């Protein structure tokens, strides 16, 4: 059992309940022991930074201070929400980088009898923990209902890979962790070039037209590539693409139907867990097609025998991918040391 402190964040309890439910459901088969931080508070999302930095950082650092006090043999804090992950990481990093900020934040924390020494915790995103700590081989072993035939667009959003303070990801522009995870579940992963593009964030509140165009691009690209669904790691992305899909369709006169799910939901599905336990049905754009694709799945046919002689290659050969299933850890490590 690997032990982690869990910082769920507000959205996991509200808009992204499907994420939380599915995470709880897959924790056991993965051997992931998550201990929720007691008395945590909101990370402040993106808004507070625009007003005053010290209270914004103090709000986040309170969670870090609590986490450190409650850490029992583990230094790792796991955040499943991208905004929470980024904020925790950011607070830890800037308190380290700017000692003055660190002092002011700690002064604020002192009023609540708390303090936090930056760098004493390790802030991780859930996907990072699942890929690099648990590993693709463990995931593959748990798959009892491979997602064969399901075409998925992997979508990370902008906040997980950038800025990558501690070099956790294979790349900032085109990370491959989610792709490899979905492949391990048996799904067909499409090349989704917008995987780290912004979903529009809170632009839906300020300038909806701008947000609709950003959402449309994401949905249209997945649709053109004949994806059955999009899969994300971020509650904000899920909310925008799921919740504003109807409005976007009305605005542009389009008829897109692109369900968006959390990666943990698909993991649960592949692990043979009942859809209801995984929060299926909570989405606004119904993911029934996804379930149908798995449910009506005929027993897997024996794959056709490969042709005896490889066909004459057409055109010019392509270079092999730099990071793949076999070298993902090694490649990342090399990058970091560079």
């Amino acid at each position, binding site marked *: 059992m690997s032990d982690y402190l869990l910082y769920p964040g507000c959205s996991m309890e509200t808009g992204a309940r499907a994420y939380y439910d599915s995470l709880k459901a897959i924790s056991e088969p993965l051997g992931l022991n998550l201990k929720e931080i007691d008395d945590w508070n909101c990370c402040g999302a993106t808004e507070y930074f625009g007003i005053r930095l010290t209270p914004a950082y103090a709000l986040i650092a309170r969670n870090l201070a609590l986490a450190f006090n409650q850490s029992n043999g583990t230094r790792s804090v796991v955040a499943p929400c991208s905004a929470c992950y980024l904020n925790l990481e950011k607070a830890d990093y800037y308190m380290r980088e700017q000692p003055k900020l660190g002092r002011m934040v700690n002064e604020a924390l002192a009023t609540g009898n708390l303090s936090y020494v930056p760098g004493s915790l390790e802030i991780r995103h859930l996907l990072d923990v699942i890929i690099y700590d648990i590993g693709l081989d463990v995931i593959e072993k748990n798959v009892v209902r491979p997602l064969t035939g399901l075409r998925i667009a992997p979508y990370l959003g902008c906040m997980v890979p950038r800025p990558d303070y501690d070099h956790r990801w294979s*790349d*900032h*522009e*085109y990370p491959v962790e989610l792709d490899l995870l979905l492949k391990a579940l048996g799904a067909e992963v499409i*090349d989704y*070039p*917008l995987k780290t593009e912004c979903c529009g964030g809170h632009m839906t509140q300020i300038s909806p037209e701008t947000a609709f165009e950003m959402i449309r*691009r994401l949905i249209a*690209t997945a649709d053109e590539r004949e994806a059955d669904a999009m899969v994300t790691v971020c509650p904000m992305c899920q909310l925008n693409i799921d919740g504003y899909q109807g409005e976007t369709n009305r605005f542009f006169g389009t008829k897109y139907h692109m369900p968006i799910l959390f990666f943990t939901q698909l993991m649960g599905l592949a692990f043979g867990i009942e859809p209801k336990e995984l929060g299926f049905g909570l989405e606004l754009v119904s993911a029934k097609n996804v379930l149908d694709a798995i449910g009506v799945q005929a027993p897997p046919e024996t794959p056709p025998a490969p042709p005896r002689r490889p066909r004459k290659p*057409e*055109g*010019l*050969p*392509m*270079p*092999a*991918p*730099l990071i793949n299933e076999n070298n993902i850890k090694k490649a990342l490590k090399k990058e970091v040391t560079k």
Partner: protein
Amino acid sequence: MTEKVIANASPLDSQERIGVYVCHCGTNIAGVVDVVQVAEWAAKQLKHRGVVIAREYKFMCSSLGQELIEKDIKELGLNRVIVAACSPHLHEKTFRTACANAGLNPFLCEMVSIREQVSWVHTDKAAATAKAKAVISGGVERVRHHVPLEPIVVPINPATMVVGGGIAGIQSALEIADAGFHVYLVEREPSIGGHMAQFDKTFPTLDCAACILTPKMVSVGSHPNITLLTWSEVEKVDGYVGNFTVTVRKKARKIDEELCTGCGICQEKCPRKIIDDVYEAGLGYRKAVYTPFPQAVPNRPVIDVPNCTYYEKGTCKACEIFCAPKAIRFDQQDEILTLEVGNIILATGYDLFDARRVTNYGYGRLPNVFTSLEIERLTNAAGPTNGNIVLRDGKTAPKSVGIVHCVGSRDRNFNNYCSVICCMQSLKFAHLVHERTGATVYNFYIDMRTAFKDYDEFYQRVMEEGTLFVRGKVAEVTNVPRYETEKGKLIIQVEDTLVGKQRRIPVDMVILSTGLEPRKDSKEIAKTFGISCSVNGWFIEKHPKLDPIATMTEGIFIAGCAQGPKDIPSSVAQGAAAAARVLGRIEQKQMALEPVRASVIEEKCSGCRICNGLCPFNAITFHEDRMVTEINPALCQGCGTCVAACPAGAITGTGFSNDQIMAQIEGLMMLNVDQEPVAA
């Protein structure tokens, strides 16, 4: 020798008669250190420690400055000289020679660095002046312990080894061989030629690379003075300048080179087709038995063992069946050669930056994104498409092409340095693409760098041909369209910094002008040859301006891209320059080495063997019978590692003995502890 000016004879009346010479170095030293005061102080306050005369002069290294020292040696009978000036790296030789000219043993001259270690690193004038006095005081104490030394003379073996058979190495090898001396040219690949052999045209004159390179390759192959060792790698280097012993692994070609006629039937009959990652840059195929290209030198194939069906399954032998002279040797083993050479030239070249690392440009993901080396192969008439510039489908010619500069160079995420050749290479591609396909060509550049002869004229020519130039670093290459006109295209998203606007430019093909990187194993190579390389991995020259060919290790020279990115003319110039340096050495037939060596005082040696493994030059041997260690003075380079390591103090370094070091420290401390002779 007259002894007239002894009015200020030292009170100690010691036998040392020391002259102190303080240099202004223009304003380099005099701007921070009060040199006049320092000289006056030395004359007065160090008199009792043997200083007979102290002078300051504008440029001590000038002939007038040297004459000053020579004159004093002769007239005042100086037997020790202190020059307080720059680092010994720069002018130790100058002043030693001056001393020798005046009849003083050159090793009785000591330099004290008051430029690199004082004036250049301090701004407080009073403190800098005080520090200059302290280091001079240390130097004076040290020089009193100096003894006359004689240089060690070693013979120079006239044979030379050149490592790397690219254009730089070829040039070096030919220059030396033509002068009548023997050269061993070691190349890792099956053929010499290097990267240049992969190119079609060379900038700025657009002459055909093969036409100018292959005659040189043929000359190397047939030269009576060149032993060509291809498919070989250097494993070990022992010895020292003039007398290196190099161990070379000659990998098994699985072909009897004597019997083989180079007819090529084996390649024709081999059933295995493999993507050629080296010569064809991954765009073309070769067989499991192959010569990289038809003009290969030597024209002898190799069998690629990991990909050969015979080694996999034990059957096939198609090549053996068809080989008329029966030259196939499946059981051939690697050969280890031990070669004696006097000098070594390293011309090991570069690797191309791996463009897959810049994921936002999509190389490896978007089929129609190509690297520069791939385009070199596409444009090459002998390449996989016979010189047709086509998209990855192998047939469609592009109608619009975007060339992205500085991929992996001048980028803090990858390499900070400029790769030098990419601007000109991009212009060459622009010209070739335009000429052969009529496509619209865009160049996306940060700065255009077209220095050197006829380069800017070529830039102007390409501009006049209608190539479009956009100044800005490309943010992204994507295949996700936003507008109707972008459908089915690659879209280059770029900030046009001259217009101040974001632009999206749809094109059919993107060429990444990828930068140069040091060889993946350059650090290991540097270690094998005992030279140093920069953080990036480029080999470090002895002096960046005045000695870009030599290294800090005597007898090892560097040429071409191994030292840093450069174009063909510069590589050839360096190759020739390295050869000239080596030829100069060979003609001298022998060489004087610094007599700075370590030696063991046997009575003190306890036989603990701590020093035995530390010597980087393998100069230490242990005598089991007597239980003592001995140092071979010819192999020792005087690095001092063993001297510092010896717990018994049994090892001394000539010129760096414990007495000398302790005396120097005492000299330094005299000023601070006693507070006594501080400035007048």
